[in-house]
């Protein structure tokens, strides 16, 4: 970037102004300052004073609001208590003071730059033409590097390097992959409804209480969980079930539709009377399909709007879901609902191994 006229320029020349030095420095950096004029050629005009006052006011407000933030942060009642009170305004007051303080500082600096700093047009040369000579020299150096190792004419070393480096590379990846890898085993095919020790699992509410048929009136429904320890927690996120007590007519429709479904006919049918239970986990992306429309007996998943027709064995009738919600085979023992067995198909979103 430096040109041959460097020698003509005497930095120590006393007759040069500082701006002459600035221009020379810029010139050596490939920058030409072609226009440089003060915003206010006559200092101290009313217009200039006005700008100065505006900036000073903004800086003053910055300080005032900044101080206001600190004061509010320390002394404003901040502890959350229910109901209306000054503490409800704590967050807005912090935001207003801090936000306006920062914004005023920003506006002050920008105004200073736009109104008081000299008007400037500078032109910088781009030097993006690659030097082909340099490229050739560097290329030769790099190729020479390879030659120096002699890897080309020492096939034994080439092979040995590969044999040595590859296992070490694997060793680097092994802890990460080996540490995290975990087999899905049967987890995607089983839920907590699987009878344990020959005992069928009871249907329970979130608080663990059992459910009797008379607890759910016709047309109603209830979210139920497997009656195992922690059955209602996220430990068993695959197990929530919607228990529905269909009206007589709807139940008959469902029974008619179920005749064609072999899997539900096992063990004397999966419904119990007019009661039916479906997995709540949407077969699309796993959200709980929990918006039940009583009039049409449709179950809607609020995440992606898949809709399931309960009276048609939870057939997906709209949206991206492709499969029915799995049915939980129901029966009643000692007056409370139990699951006859686990779901007969995997619940939830689809996956590769799903038959």
């Amino acid at each position, binding site marked *: 970037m430096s040109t041959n006229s460097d020698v003509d320029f005497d930095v120590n020349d006393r007759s040069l102004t500082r701006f002459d030095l600035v221009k020379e420095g*810029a010139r*050596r*950096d490939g*920058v030409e300052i072609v226009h440089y004029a003060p915003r206010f050629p006559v200092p101290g005009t*009313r*217009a200039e004073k006005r700008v100065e006052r505006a900036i000073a006011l903004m800086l003053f407000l910055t300080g005032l609001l900044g101080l206001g933030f600190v004061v509010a*942060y320390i002394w404003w009642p901040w502890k*959350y208590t229910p109901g209306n009170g000054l503490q409800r305004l704590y*967050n807005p007051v912090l*935001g*207003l003071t*801090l*936000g*306006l303080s*920062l*914004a005023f*500082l*920003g506006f002050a600096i*920008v*105004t200073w*730059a736009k109104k008081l700093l000299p008007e*400037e047009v*500078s*032109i*910088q*040369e*781009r030097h*993006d033409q690659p030097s082909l000579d340099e490229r050739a020299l560097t290329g030769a150096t790099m190729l020479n590097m390879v030659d120096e190792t002699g890897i080309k004419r020492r096939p034994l070393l080439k092979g040995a390097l590969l044999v040595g480096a590859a296992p070490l590379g694997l060793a680097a990846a092994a802890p990460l992959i080996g540490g*995290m*890898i*975990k*087999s*899905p085993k049967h*987890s*995607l095919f089983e839920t907590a409804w699987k009878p344990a020790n020959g005992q069928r699992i009871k249907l329970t509410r979130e608080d663990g209480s059992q459910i009797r048929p008379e607890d759910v009136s016709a047309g109603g429904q209830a*979210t139920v*969980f497997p009656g195992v320890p922690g059955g209602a927690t*996220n430990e068993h*996120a*695959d197990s*929530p079930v919607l228990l529905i007590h269909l009206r007589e007519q709807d139940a008959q429709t469902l029974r008619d539709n179920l005749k064609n479904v072999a899997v539900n006919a096992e063990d004397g049918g999966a419904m119990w009377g007019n009661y039916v239970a479906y997995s709540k986990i949407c077969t*699309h*992306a*796993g959200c*709980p399909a*929990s*918006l039940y429309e009583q009039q049409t007996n449709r179950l809607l998943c*609020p995440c992606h*709007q898949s809709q399931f027709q309960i009276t048609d064995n939870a057939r997906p009738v709209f*949206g*991206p*879901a492709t499969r029915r919600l799995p049915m939980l085979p129901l029966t009643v023992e000692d007056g409370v609902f139990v699951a006859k067995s686990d779901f007969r198909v995997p619940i*939830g*979103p*689809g*996956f*590769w*191994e*799903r*038959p």
Partner: protein
Amino acid sequence: MKQSKLDLAGLPAKAAGEIDDRLQVSSPLRRLLNKVFPDHWSFLLGEIALYSFIVLLLTGTFLTLWFDPSSNEVTYHGPYTPLQGIPMSRAYESALQLSFEVRGGLIMRQMHHWAALLFMAAIVVHMLRVFFTGAFRKPRELNWIIGVLLFWLGFVEGFAGYSLPDDALSGTGLRIASAIMLSIPVIGSWVTTSLFGGEFPGHEILGRLYIAHVLLVPAILLGLIAAHMGLLVKQKHTQWPGPGRSNDNVVGIRMFPGFAAKAGGFFMIVFGVIALLGGLFQINPIWLFGPYEAAVVSAASQPDWYVMFLDGSTRLMPPWEARFPLWPGHHYTLPPLFWPTVVLPGVLTMLPLFYPFIEARKFKSKASHHLLQRPRDVPTRTALGAMALAFYIVLLISGGNDVIADKFDISLNAMTWAGRVGLLVLPPLAYWITYRACLGLQQHDREVLAHGVETGIIKRLPNGAFVEVHQPLAPVDEHGHPAALPYAGWVVPKKMNRVGALVPTIKGFFFPIEEPAKPAYPSEAPVSPAPTREGITSGKQ
């Protein structure tokens, strides 16, 4: 011995001299101070993203001091009464404590969230600017690629961030993420159980997301942002065509003091806006959502805005499941979820990554480009961009189609079908309309250059015809015909005010603070003469 007097005024100069003795920094430092930046409002968009990122680092560091990414079950006993006695994860409890029991914790949380939304918005708008002006062309393809990666990293970072509090929304989002992973052919179930450390939700995921959110992803983001800025400094900024501007120079102001002051001031303004948003506008009120329970979800479950387009694509996807036997007795499933959430993002990553090279090949352009192009001058690219934008907007709107259906009383199924049809119909339509609009705008520019600006003055000719008087932009010859002006790739004045027909506004609120400037005669108005291109182009050069 005589003690040497401490020369306070000379101290900085002396210290600087000592430093230069040791490091020889004066010439690189001066080169940096003298670096020239061109000025245009659209160049500020990327800066917003940078400043939001700094705010994210600051507020995020504060949040880590209290947040505990633990999935251990606890019972809430804090001051927020509606949740008292409710079992929840420790992560959710600590997020509640941050909101209610840490002084200033809520504003920090809200600023963090708003800054994340702004970060992603600024990235997207900055990307549109770079695309539509052709700033991604050689030699800046690498910076474009880094930019695309920054978008996706920001996406992942944001998703990890809003999954952490373990409220109902974040748990639902995670469950969908696990379903997306499950949908990958062959390895899906292994990937899911490995990442979650077992069946969803498991006990590992919050801790893993946490370290990804506060260390891994931010470190990569920081490195890529540094590379992004480094390349910008090395390759210098692009500029709009204009007087004195060429492909071989940069015209603007030097970095110090002008550019740095403006940028610093702008940082403070962005910071201030985020603070105002964080203080005044509620965002992600996790205490209203409740802890995550696998069986509970509410209507209008929406992710953050930058994830919404993928939610939209998921909603619009028809239920096309592929099931096939690989060998007798064994059937395998390819869920429909795979296409809109794995394949589509893959395509949306690869297409933009390669776009600069595809375009250069199509336009047979091998030169370096430092001058920006007005969108109208490259109709093909602009129309392609509009097409992509239409595609994106349909997906974005569909991500909230249940809310729209609810608020405007439209059938939800109709919204879904409108989205499905719109996704196929609107992008080609956007392409066609944009292409025609670009050609029309080009033509109007040429018309004004040839005939002048419309004055709004109607003249009646002796033969009774009416004509509008035009103000030529170039000097006229003895017959009154203006000289031909070439198009310079920059704004052509199209209103009389633009060529100085009206007196400029006089400054001052109650009384004038300066003498009004004399109006320049229209014929003397400066017109950029640099002849770079001629005629309507299809963007090839």
